[in-house]
């Protein structure tokens, strides 16, 4: 933007690029954005790529999906298939199914794009899930980022909705059975169930409306919401600046990393192409959702060992784990607790995920901004809660494959279900306990290393015949990573201004005790000095000379 019109109106000779940038800037004020954002420091860490995986696979989903819309016809009108796939020639099916077969068998590259779309959708949701785990375990949801956690959470739900609506579009046997299950679950809901199902399917299941309706959701409503939320999500990242891990020089008051232009842009832009390339590679070699093997939807046949897409597994598994008999007729109405309990439990689970940042903020009472992401070990209770949640989810997820587990490992169906029921109920407690102990043990190890140095691998024989391993003290940069974390003490119960101890305070104190009573505090300077003094004190002159010279 250094070029300017000279006073007499003649322009100095300028390159095309600078002419173009002047043209654009004078119409868009782009220079301001570039000045503001172009040299922003962007903290760098491999775990920050998980969100990018999600974002970039979403872009791939949008690109490939747009191509598919030019060929797919969302109609449930009956036709006799007349495409290239011989085994299904003449079979009656919906136009949706026939057009999906045409994309796969009659459009050059159509199968490639369709497979890339499906794989990208699977990776999109997996990317979001892993990104959320990273955010959770490092406490990156703390003030000021709580609302961005909520935005991300909503995107996770919408992404699963996108996945399921897309999965249902080809109107094949597998997806039709998926819809049948959804229909059965909706019908099981009290009061509104029957009518909701009737309205959704435009009459009786399966009807002729559902594919068209899901298509509108799939290519219009849900993507529009997702794109808007992605924009908000990234805007928040600009407003908050990215978190960073504790490291020398990095503070709550700075954001350290390579500049957006050029390094970060090149890395992130390159990474987009790598994610795209990985998806293209998978789509070139690995079949996904071979609807031609399943055939068109028919309410009567079904094959054994059917599996939903991975992200629906936890819900399907929850349905499978309900013991027999959880349904009652009461007040002349049917109460299907075999449907309601999974819905309520899963609903409760995801609401807990949604509100966790607010719970933790309430427990700690910490109103400061946090821009340094935690190491998971330094908040053992949070990490343990996360481990319990992951175990719960994993148990449900495994249950969606209970029949396959049983056949592959020659187990009884009943045995697998009972084992997974136990996993879902007891597993989280075990995982909580183990994760918490591991975190505390790791914290103790960190303290040990800070206080006494790390094992150098150098063995020294003392004059008395004793062998010792020389411990090498940390330099101040390495030490900083191990000592710079927040430690909280349990909340003390104190009467409020009116001399009362409220129930809320009692609960908060109890939760706070649960969170922080067995905390490990970071090493202080006094402790380190004391530890050093200890090393010096008992050593008679000369005896530890070799060890000391390398230690201090």
């Amino acid at each position, binding site marked *: 933007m250094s070029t300017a019109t000279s006073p007499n109106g003649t322009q100095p000779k300028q390159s095309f690029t600078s002419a173009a940038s002047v043209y654009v800037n004078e119409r868009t004020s782009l220079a301001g954005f570039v000045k503001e954002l172009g040299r922003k*420091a962007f903290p760098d860490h491999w775990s920050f790529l998980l969100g990018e995986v999600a974002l970039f696979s979403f872009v791939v989903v949008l690109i490939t999906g747009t191509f598919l819309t030019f060929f797919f016809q969302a109609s449930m009108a009956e036709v006799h298939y007349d495409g290239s796939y011989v085994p299904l020639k003449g079979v009656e099916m919906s136009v949706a199914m026939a057009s999906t077969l045409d994309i796969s*068998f009659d459009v050059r590259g159509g199968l*490639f794009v369709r*497979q890339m779309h499906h794989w990208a959708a699977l990776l999109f949701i997996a990317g979001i899930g892993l990104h959320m785990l990273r955010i959770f375990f490092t406490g990156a949801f703390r003030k000021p980022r709580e609302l961005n956690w909520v935005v991300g959470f909503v995107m996770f739900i919408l992404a699963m909705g996108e996945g399921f609506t897309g999965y249902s579009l080809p109107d094949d046997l597998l997806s039709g*059975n998926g819809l*049948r*299950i959804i229909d*059965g679950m909706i*019908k099981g809901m009290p009061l509104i*169930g*029957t009518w909701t199902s*009737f309205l*959704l399917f435009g009459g*009786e*299941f*399966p*009807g002729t409306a559902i594919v068209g309706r899901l298509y509108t959701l799939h290519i219009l409503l849900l993507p529009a919401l997702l794109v808007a939320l992605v924009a908000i999500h990234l805007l928040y990242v600009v407003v908050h*600046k990215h978190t960073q891990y504790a490291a020398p020089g990095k*503070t*709550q008051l*700075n*954001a*350290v990393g*390579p500049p957006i232009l*050029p*390094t970060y842009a*090149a*890395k992130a832009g*390159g*990474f987009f*192409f*790598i994610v795209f*390339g990985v998806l*293209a590679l998978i789509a070139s070699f690995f079949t996904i959702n071979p609807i031609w093997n399943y055939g068109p*939807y*028919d*309410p*009567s046949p*079904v*094959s054994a060992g*059917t599996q939903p897409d991975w992200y629906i597994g936890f819900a399907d598994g929850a349905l*499978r784990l*309900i013991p*027999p008999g959880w*349904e009652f007729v009461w007040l*002349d109405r049917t109460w299907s607790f*075999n449907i309601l309990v999974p819905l309520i439990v899963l609903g409760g689970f995801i609401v807990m995920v949604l509100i966790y940042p607010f719970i933790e903020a309430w427990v700690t009472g910490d109103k*400061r*901004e946090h821009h340094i992401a935690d190491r998971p070990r330094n908040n053992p209770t949070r990490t343990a809660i996360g481990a319990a949640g992951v175990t719960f989810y994993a148990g449900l997820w495994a249950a969606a494959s209970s029949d396959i587990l049983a056949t592959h490992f020659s187990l009884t*169906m009943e045995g697998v*279900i009972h084992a997974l029921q136990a996993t879902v109920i007891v597993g989280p407690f075990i995982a909580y306990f183990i994760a918490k102990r591991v975190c505390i043990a790791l914290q103790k190890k960190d303290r040990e290393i800070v206080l006494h140095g790390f094992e150098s691998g150098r063995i020294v024989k003392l004059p008395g015949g004793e062998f010792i391993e020389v411990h090498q003290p940390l330099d*101040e940069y390495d030490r900083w990573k191990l000592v*710079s974390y*927040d*430690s*909280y003490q*349990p909340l003390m119960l104190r009467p409020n201004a009116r001399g009362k101890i409220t129930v809320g305070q009692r609960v908060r104190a109890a939760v*706070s005790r649960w969170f922080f009573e067995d905390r490990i505090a970071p*090493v202080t*300077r006094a402790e380190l000095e004391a530890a050093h003094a200890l090393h010096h004190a008992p050593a008679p002159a000369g005896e530890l000379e070799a060890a000391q010279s390398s230690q201090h």
Partner: protein
Amino acid sequence: MAQDDHSGAELAAADSSHAAHDSVASPGTALITTDGFENPGFPPHRPRVTDEDPKRAKRAQRTVYTLFYLSILGSVWAVAAYMLFPIEGNDVDAVRLNNMFIGLGATLALFGIGFGAVHWAKSVMVDVELADERHPVGGSPETRAAAAQVFADADRESGFSRRSVIRNSLIGALIAFPLPAVVLFRGFAPQDQNPVELLNHTMWKQGTRLALDPSGAPIKASDVTIGSAFHVIPEGLADLEHGKLEEKAKAAVLLMRLEPSELNELPERASWSYDGIVAYSKICTHVGCPVALYEQHTHHLLCPCHQSQFDVANHCEVIFGPAKRPLPQLPIAVDDEGYLVAQSDFTEPVGPSFWERN
């Protein structure tokens, strides 16, 4: 190096108070130690091999442009594959080759750009780290005061707080105006149908012959040998003009013949079977999947979706899994020509439970 602009001492001082601008914010139950370590500031910069060795730097540059050239090659390859591997003549192999070679070309094109750009950034571009200052997200006190003033001015000028009748009537109107849109959603389902009525009945009625799924050929009782199982639809289903799948979704039946001695029938249903032949709804009472897997020697039916198991010998009661109710039984008989027919419709709604079912 931008980081050199910040002395380590400055950064450390800022950190020891957690966040200077945040000093008013409560730390809650966080332990504020006065004896913590100080942030040592940025460690010395470590040059990369490409910074120190001109040969390595040259090689990195060559790698980058080679990758970009490979990408162009990949794109050309994908275009060529589109033409060289057509899909012709009902050949599944051609589809596979078309998919694979277009895909490989595209992969090379994408990887070339991706790895080239990342390698450029990591090995060739100047290795610089910047440190940006963070500011409180809430903005400065002046900004907040100015924003509050804007709202105060807007409120004063509009009378939003003062003119409560105007304000409340607007809120009322805003609540009411989406209601017509909600009502429009009633049009999602036909106006002249009652779902409960529909769910209570199927196509079966007295005298409807049991026919094979999918051929529609009627079944003679004499064709049903002991131990066999048939997938059954009502005769005439295939001839329906409309609603074929809707009817099938309710009327699908499994027909099995057991040794009469193994069949433990309820007394009131003694006349519902014929010579050990029984017919049960195929639609699972859990969430409606077809209960399509029959294990002959145990007489168990298994739903492949959620593993509910039903015991055919004991009027299809649930022996495992999340389903509650037995599969409804279709009362059958034999007509004059020896074909199996239904005595009536099912005596209860088939398929998944619903609220109004009782």
